[in-house]
């Protein structure tokens, strides 16, 4: 008789846990009482012993989230096969035919049909390309579901229709399906359909607020060196380089120094990214667009300035290419030109940081105990507190501030060869 290995009860506070690892590969002969797997609960890590002697059979794989009494695997007798339990049947339409499939397949079914926490970005294959069927891609994009948040149950780990529909059934749709209808007793000037770009922006912001735990840090930074460096660069290039170009570069380099916030949460993983693509918020007719400067850490400020101008022009003309808007890992948003000092920017999902820039204005400051009037700027950094904590975020902000007052650094940045 196959002996099930189940998630044990560790007391009243630990109903949930995670399967850290199997200590032996499937098929290993194990003795009753011998530890076979490791579980992590909120409090500690536990080893779970074999309930009987026999051959080890894995049902769930490492990383699986466990509920009390959930079947994790079996110890099988001689020539015995693992029982097909109710849990191993997928609710997907093609389920029953594949009961004859391998046990690996059954595991995949469990993970797709049973436990959301098993969803990892396992489908991400070569070079970060996500293996998903065209149908799954279309459905995911229509329903605002990130493919990176899904685990594929199709052949070779492909994300298929059933995976997206399962996720759609669980997750709230990003774009609000319908706002409550308010009885209007006021005189109405105009009724504007809440559709198109406005509705997309609303959906993204709502998604941001419901997913992330955002916190904003603010800091006043001297901007004398910055304004001088910019004047010098303008003179050298004969063009007016936007302040945004400097802040894109500062943020990009700071994220290289402190990579914690150049990250996204995907399934049950925190994914630190090895490229820095900075988006900049750009006001466009009827809404907001965020074109992206790809590889901003590697570009010169003059070059970034040029790209900002090109991308902003395309965005305002409504002619952004898909590539212009994709792949941002962090964002800057500048309201300084509109007289704003400090604010609380909203994260651009799935990113974990956004830098808000206020107006650069001569303000009285204490310079070694003497009050002087110097240009300063308020920086507002909103970050996802799930990803990291206040101190690393403050250090990121500091990494930006330091660059702004490091004359040699600024000189090297504006050097035109």
């Amino acid at each position, binding site marked *: 008789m196959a002996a099930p290995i189940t998630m044990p009860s560790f007391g009243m506070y630990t109903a949930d846990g995670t399967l850290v690892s199997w200590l032996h590969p499937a098929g290993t002969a194990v003795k009753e009482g011998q530890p076979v797997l490791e579980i992590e609960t909120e409090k500690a890590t536990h080893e779970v012993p074999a309930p009987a002697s026999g051959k080890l059979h894995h049902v769930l794989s490492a990383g699986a989230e466990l509920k009390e009494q959930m079947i994790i695997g079996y110890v099988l007798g001689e020539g015995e096969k693992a029982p097909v339990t109710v849990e191993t049947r997928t609710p997907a339409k093609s389920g029953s*035919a*594949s009961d004859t*499939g391998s046990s690996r397949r059954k595991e995949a079914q469990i993970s797709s049909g049973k436990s959301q926490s098993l969803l990892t970005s396992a489908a991400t294959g070569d070079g970060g390309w996500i293996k998903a*069927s065209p*149908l799954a891609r279309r459905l995911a994009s229509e329903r605002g579901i990130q493919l990176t948040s899904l685990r594929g149950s199709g052949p*070779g780990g*492909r994300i*298929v229709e059933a995976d997206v529909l399962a996720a759609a059934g669980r997750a709230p749709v990003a774009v609000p399906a319908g706002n409550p209808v308010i009885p209007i007793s006021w005189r109405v000037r105009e009724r504007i359909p809440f559709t198109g770009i406005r509705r997309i922006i609303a959906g993204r912001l709502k998604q941001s607020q419901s997913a992330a735990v955002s916190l904003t840090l603010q800091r006043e930074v001297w901007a004398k060196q910055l304004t001088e460096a910019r004047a010098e660069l303008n003179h050298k290039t004969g063009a007016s380089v936007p302040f945004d170009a400097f802040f894109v570069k500062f943020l990009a380099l700071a994220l290289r120094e402190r990579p914690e916030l150049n990250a996204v949460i995907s399934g049950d993983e925190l994914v630190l990214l090895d490229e820095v693509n900075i988006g900049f918020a750009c006001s466009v007719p009827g809404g907001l667009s965020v074109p992206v400067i790809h590889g901003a850490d590697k570009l010169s400020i003059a070059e970034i300035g040029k790209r900002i101008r090109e991308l902003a022009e395309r965005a305002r003309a409504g002619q952004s290419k898909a590539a212009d808007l994709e792949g941002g890992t962090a964002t800057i948003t500048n309201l300084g030109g509109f007289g704003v000092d400090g604010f609380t920017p909203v994260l651009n999902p799935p990113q974990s940081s956004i830098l808000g820039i206020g107006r650069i204005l001569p303000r009285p400051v204490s310079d070694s105990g003497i009050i002087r009037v110097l240009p300063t700027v308020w920086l507002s950094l909103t970050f996802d507190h799930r990803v990291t904590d206040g101190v690393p975020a403050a250090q990121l902000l500091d990494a930006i501030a330091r660059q702004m007052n490091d004359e040699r650094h600024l000189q090297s940045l504006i050097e035109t060869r």
Partner: protein
Amino acid sequence: MSTPIRELSFGQAINEALRLEMRRDPTVIVMGEDIAGAAGREHLGLSDAWGGPMRATRGLIKEFGAARVIDTPIAEMGFTGMAVGAAMTGLRPVVEIMFVDLIGVCYDQIINQAAKMHYMMGGKVELPMVIRTAYGTRGDKRSYGGGAAAQHSQTLYSVLAHIPGLKVVVPSTAYNAKGLTIAAIRDNGPVVVMEHKFLGTSAKGHVPEEAYTVPIGKCEIVRKGKDVTLVGIGRMTHVCLEAATTLAAGGIEAEVVDVLTINPLDEETIIESVKRTHRCVVVDEDTPVCSMARDIAARVGEAAFDFLDAPVKAISSADTPVPFAAVLEANYTPNADKVVAAVKEQIG
């Protein structure tokens, strides 16, 4: 009291189609090798021939006479050319090329003359001719001693479908064999009718007595399903249906589309089906390179891209000459097991 349903074999259905059209229209003539009979053996009572691989012309000489049922020498180039000329000048010839393997002998008459003459003459001539030809392997292990080997077992319809100006139909049942043959005879352009050698018994079925047509250029959905579209050509439609029955036992509902005409192809029916099922397996008895299977797969991939949940799969025969040994031949052609395996691979 109910009338028993009349059943005919595939060959008998084609025979009836020819007979009815020859009665209806005096310009319809048939020609080919061994279709009329045994000249010079009248004294033995052998005025009728074996009637070709399908027995499709058996008995026609007796009803219509030697002027309309013409036995030819073994010279496909000559008599196909004769049919092109006859068609250009007012007759409706039905030519029988005994096996499609022999099409190479008269390929010029087909691709350069029959298919092109309407266009070369600025549309002033019509070419209402039909080429009937047998194709295919037995594809099962019951053919003790093997099939007909590499020179008499080919499918080759892809090389005909490739030619603009030719229509190519591939019937799969007695019913649509009769209807497509009549439609081909009534069509004002050259139409090739591909007749599978071994559909004889499996394709026996109800055939109405009167003349009727099955439209050229239309697919038929022969089984409804929601999980995968199986596209079958000719005998492969039966392979698809067999696979669908097996799949149904495992809870997978396959839709089966019988292509019936490979040129012009009814893309719409196939693509609409795939848009519903999100998966597609095309099953074709021809060899894989430049094949109908891959042609259909490519069209589905292009037109239904955003609806596909798995890569379109094309199943063809092996890319080799047809083997003689029965057991090899049986493995050479697509069969229901291969189709079932492909579907399971798609669904995972």
